[in-house]
């Protein structure tokens, strides 16, 4: 397991280098003078000059890249042009917010998706199967941002069931500890607050989790169907085991392997979708951090935000890969 993990980590190196190259290029290929954009139309020429210099925009690219990477290795993600704060210092709350949201979105997607998939496969061709797969098909076709807007309109505005934005009650913000608000509220021992935080999570999680949910449901179903046709399931049946044992012990575990891949990949979609969902639901996460940075042309933030999301994505897929090995004893390289 250790060697395997090491090998997987080693295989990440070129990917990570490629990622930094891409994020580095973002800033340097973007047209226009960053200094000008930051200072806006009312800026004086000297101000622009000064800013240019302080940003080190006059050095050769190769040199700038080496600075960039060595900074990264020291945990220095650059300084936000907008807030003038080192990104590494201010990014944690954003990451935590995104993590919390993606976690709940994924939780929603997995719980609903996997179970719907199982039931659909179990009751293949039943009305439930038909309906679930139709919903799943629609689910993969819905634009995230539109779903978010519609949810906001219907459930927040028209029905007032859920708050329309934010992570917690605006009126009564809590002292963050970990910045995972659900966790924080529990640490504070304030469960009514936990409830409020969860309520804030509902709409964005559903918006964000719908596509992965639909994909997971479809994947689980087809994977289950395939597994159910396999020889070893027939063996289990021949042993005389009941349906439940067959489905939840043997079939599910086997079906989970491709589903796991999908879950890993969908996390990426989710992290990407966060940029839209977070903007709409005023969720102060990395997605919004990047979005704001784009409108402001806060290059270091765009750079680091994208790098961090890509990095998270890569790590999650690494974890998924390691999980495979955990589930599937055959993997052995």
């Amino acid at each position, binding site marked *: 397991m250790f060697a395997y993990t090491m090998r997987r980590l080693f295989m990440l190196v070129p990917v990570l280098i490629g990622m930094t190259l891409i994020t580095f290029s973002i800033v340097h290929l973007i047209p226009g003078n960053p200094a000008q954009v930051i200072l806006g139309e009312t800026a004086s020429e000297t101000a622009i000059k000064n800013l240019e210099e302080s940003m080190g925009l006059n050095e050769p690219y190769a040199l700038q890249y080496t600075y960039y990477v060595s900074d990264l290795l020291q945990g220095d993600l650059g300084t936000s042009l907008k807030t003038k704060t080192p990104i590494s210092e201010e990014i944690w709350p954003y990451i935590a917010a995104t993590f919390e949201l993606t976690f709940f979105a994924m939780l929603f997607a997995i719980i609903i998706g996997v179970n719907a998939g199982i039931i659909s496969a179990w009751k293949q*061709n039943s009305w439930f199967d038909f309906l679930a797969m139709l919903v799943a098909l629609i689910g993969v076709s819905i634009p995230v941002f539109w779903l978010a807007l519609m949810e906001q309109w219907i459930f927040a505005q028209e029905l007032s069931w859920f708050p329309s934005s934010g992570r917690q009650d605006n009126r009564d913000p809590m002292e963050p500890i970990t910045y995972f608000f659900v966790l924080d509220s529990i640490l504070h021992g304030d469960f009514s607050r936990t409830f409020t935080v969860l309520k804030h999570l509902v709409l964005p999680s559903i918006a964000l989790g719908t596509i992965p949910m639909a994909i997971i449901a479809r994947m689980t179903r087809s994977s289950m169907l395939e597994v159910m*046709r*396999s*020889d*070893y*399931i*027939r*063996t*289990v*049946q*021949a*042993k*005389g*085991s*009941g349906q439940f*044992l067959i489905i939840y012990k*043997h079939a599910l*575990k*086997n079906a989970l392997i491709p589903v796991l891949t999908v879950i890993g990949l969908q996390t990426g979609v989710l992290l990407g979708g966060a940029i839209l969902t977070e903007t709409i639901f005023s969720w102060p996460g990395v997605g919004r951090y990047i979005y704001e940075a784009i409108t402001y042309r806060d290059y270091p933030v765009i750079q680091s935000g994208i790098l961090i999301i890509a990095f998270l994505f890569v790590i999650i897929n690494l974890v998924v890969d390691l999980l495979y090995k955990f*589930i*599937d*004893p*055959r993997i052995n390289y």
Partner: protein
Amino acid sequence: MSDEILKITSLQTHFFTDQGEIPAVDGVSLTVHKGEVVGIVGESGCGKSVTSLSIMQLVPSPPGKIVGGTIHYKSENLLNASKKRIKDIRGNEISMIFQEPMTSLDPLFTIGNQLREALQIHKKINKKQANQKSIEMLKLVGIPRAEEVMNDYPHQLSGGMRQRVMIAISMACDPEILIADEPTTALDVTIQAQILDLMKKLNHEKDTAILLITHDLGVVAEICDRVIVMYAGQVVEEGTTREILKNPTHPYTKGLIRSIPKLHEKDQKLYSIPGTVPKPKMGMLGCRFKDRCEFAHDRCFSEAPELFSLGNNRYSRCFLLDDTERKVASDAEANTGS
């Protein structure tokens, strides 16, 4: 032979597919007696597996469905039994092993886990006892280092070992009948010899009846007491092994035996049955072998022959064996010579 423990009468299992209804098993009857080894032979697609799956009621459904006949285990018609009862019987009184040892074990669970599972489903024993019994079973099927193998995963074992494990699983609850669907086809000859040896041993020691499905007449000769020959979803001939091999009556059986290259005979040109095995389909007219049969005559094209009893539990589905035509048949045979 003593008491019948499995009796199938005119079993019909059909598949309902896009291409229409396929009568994969079309009126198969057979009997297995206690402690007996019965072989079913026939070429690919003739319905051997479907017959065996029908007994276990594991025919994939949809598209498959048992549409007629009875399957009596002892005195109970399994086709009328409750789901619960079927589950109780499976693996406990009738158990089954499959052709592909490579894929028939769940790759994600240890051998021990899968063995214990079989025991725990049917026997009220705790995990420890189950473990003990499992190790015992592994030793019985000749697996060295049984304790270690308990913690191995299927992929860590060779094909022969896996097939032994499969046998151990199916024998764990001391079933009355073991159905083995081509248990050695995927294995090498030297390994096949080991497995056949093992099955013989189990049959002797535990007095388990075995329904062995194969397409290899050699295997049949090796282990079976009685043989049933199938062709295109039907039984075409039945009898003791010796009689079938030495004195086949149905033209198909005859052709089959003659077309096998013999290891211990001086070589001559091989006989070959022309054409291919027809895919079963609905409304087939006449004898199913007629298109490939040297002796086919008008009657064969218009009328489906029944299984004629030749006495002494010997049956054959050919008009040539209809008493009225017996004589002509033997003449014809004399003519062809071989």
